[in-house]
């Protein structure tokens, strides 16, 4: 076990109760054991290809490019994965690891339900038990996804503590893990949490960027000028960015949710407006008040509605390798509409945050430039929110 690998610069670490330390260390060993294991790699590849449908395509967004009137826009189509988002990449990896470690029960947290659905899906496939912790508020808002998880055989546990949203569901999942640490595996949904989770989630998500980088070279003959991804906990972003971090000419942009605006109290922009602190086991940028109490986040997209961010993003911000910016609810919804009308693709509202920034960058860029966007998911899950939003707008 290498102590240095638990940190990304000053960020990361392992701030969990002693009752979880052995589980976290056992997980670290399990993770390290698969890093050079061709059998594991083969099993994972098989599911990524034959179950989830990888590699996902790279689509040149011709009409969106014309609309922006500048740089070319390319979409990495994570929306075409089984269950509709990049989340499945991570759940396939972690569930296979759980199986290898002899754990038959999966514990997961979920906000909107996207990670919960991906966890329930893989649990069904591998014949494992699955309990998904979900804030009561989200259970109410996302009844459709609750039904989906239950249909897939998972148990959804409503969480009634705190703000009754994703951060509280994560607390409760960690508590449940402590109580059942012997036979349970905590399948975390983003690049957050104590070491080794941020490293591990990156490892399972980096397939996004690895594929996209090769596809850009193959289809266009060169690397993109810019890479853009939305940042909730930061898993699709770190999965996309990792392949490009060493390409110093490539500009990288992470897009957080500015909610109702960065000048309001209703946003989820931990990197843009938060300050370093400890939440859910790691030291990173978080939203908290001057007393260190966590402030609930706001975003129209449930997947970005989280007051923390993975520690590697904090590091990439600190060293200036990635530029982090934020897009409002309104701008994201505008981008949803654009992609629907111009490309015939209904994006997840999370992904629309990245799209909005990509269109802005493209409109300022030259035709010789190429912008690669991670389209992290599709918008099927967001029909209710999108409809409500545009109805409200037209009234």
């Amino acid at each position, binding site marked *: 076990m290498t102590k240095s690998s638990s940190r990304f610069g000053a960020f990361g670490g*392992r701030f969990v109760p*002693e009752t979880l330390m052995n589980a976290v260390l056992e997980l670290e060993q399990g993770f390290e054991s698969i890093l050079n294991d061709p059998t594991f790699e083969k099993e994972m590849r098989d599911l990524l290809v034959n179950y989830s449908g990888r590699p996902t395509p790279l689509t040149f967004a011709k009409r969106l490019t014309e609309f922006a009137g500048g740089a070319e826009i390319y979409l990495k189509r994570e929306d075409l994965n089984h269950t509709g988002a990049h989340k499945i990449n991570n759940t396939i990896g972690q569930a296979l690891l759980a199986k290898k470690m002899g754990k038959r029960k999966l514990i997961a947290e979920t906000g909107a339900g996207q990670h919960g659905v991906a966890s329930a899906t893989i649990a069904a496939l591998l014949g494992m038990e699955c309990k998904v912790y979900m804030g009561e508020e989200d259970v109410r808002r996302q009844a459709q996804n609750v039904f989906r998880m239950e249909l897939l055989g998972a148990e959804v546990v409503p969480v009634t503590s705190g703000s009754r949203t994703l951060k509280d569901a994560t607390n409760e999942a960690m508590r449940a893990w402590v109580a059942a640490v012997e036979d349970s595996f905590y399948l975390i949904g983003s690049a957050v949490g104590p070491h080794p989770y941020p490293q591990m989630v990156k490892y399972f998500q980096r397939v996004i960027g690895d594929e996209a980088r090769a596809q850009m070279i193959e289809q266009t003959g060169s690397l993109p000028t810019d890479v853009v991804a939305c940042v909730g906990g930061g898993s699709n972003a770190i999965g996309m960015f990792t392949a490009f971090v060493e390409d110093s000419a490539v500009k990288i942009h992470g897009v957080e949710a500015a909610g109702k605006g960065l000048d309001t109290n209703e946003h989820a922009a931990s990197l843009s407006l938060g300050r370093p602190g400890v939440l859910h086991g790691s030291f990173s940028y978080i939203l*908290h008040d001057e007393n*260190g109490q966590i402030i609930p986040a706001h975003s129209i997209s449930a997947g970005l509605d989280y007051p923390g961010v993975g520690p590697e993003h904090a590091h990439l911000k600190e060293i200036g390798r990635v530029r982090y910016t934020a897009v409002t609810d309104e701008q994201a919804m505008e981008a949803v509409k654009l992609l629907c009308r111009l490309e015939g693709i209904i994006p997840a509202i999370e992904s629309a945050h990245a799209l909005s920034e990509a269109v802005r960058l493209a409109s300022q860029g030259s035709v010789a430039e190429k912008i690669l966007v991670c389209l992290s998911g599709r918008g099927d899950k967001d029909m209710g929110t999108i409809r409500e939003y545009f109805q409200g707008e037209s009234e």
Partner: protein
Amino acid sequence: MSRLANAFQTNQTNLIPYLVAGYPSVEATIDLIHLLAEEGVTAIELGVPFSDPVADGPIIQLAAEKALSNGITLSDVFAIAQTVRDQGNTIPLILFSYYNPLLSYGLEKVAIDAEKAGFSGFIVPDLPYEESDLLRTQLEQVSLDLIPLVAPTSEERVAKIAATAKGFVYCVSSLGTTGVRQSFASNLDSFLQQVRSSSRVPIAVGFGVSTASQVQELRTKADGVIVGSALVKQVTEMEQALCKEDEKQVALNTIRGFVKKLLS
């Protein structure tokens, strides 16, 4: 000798109760500290309310939420300690806080202010041994103890954790969160023996201790028994009365009865 170590030597009750600071009010917390000191407890843990208490069960979670909605901050917790000291109470006080409120306050400043307010040590439930150097260094500057936790699952970690322990070693009696429980980890006895053999400071046991008979039993196995949720539950039941001048005394008497039973 630190105030805490001294308390273990001179006090025979071996009881360490836990209160959520500022719950149901600052005044009630002060009343409860005096009450517990009068009953002769060994030390008192004062819990700093936190928005995301991952190690706590529903009873303490709810109490902390209410304290937060009353606007309780770390400074208020220091003021509570200062007040009981000013009133002549010398009971050892332990600050129980999650790490983020301490980080936000500043580790150097928090150590200095805690010492000034009369605290003897810190318990930080989400700060495992590997991450504890920064805080330990600051606490050592002001001679405060960083009290570590060990769990039945700590196994080979017990030795190194116990070796650096100051004040006492907090032995977690059951997996899961704080809360009222019927039973403890099945390997509790051998676990406590293991901790005892690697520790130069007293050992105390807690998490889920709720009845007089459990306290009796655990007292024979450890130097201290920590009672949290069971006591906070009593406070919750008296929540309204504790904040009313004319009902307060009856409520305090009820809680005193509970404490006496634990000590019987």
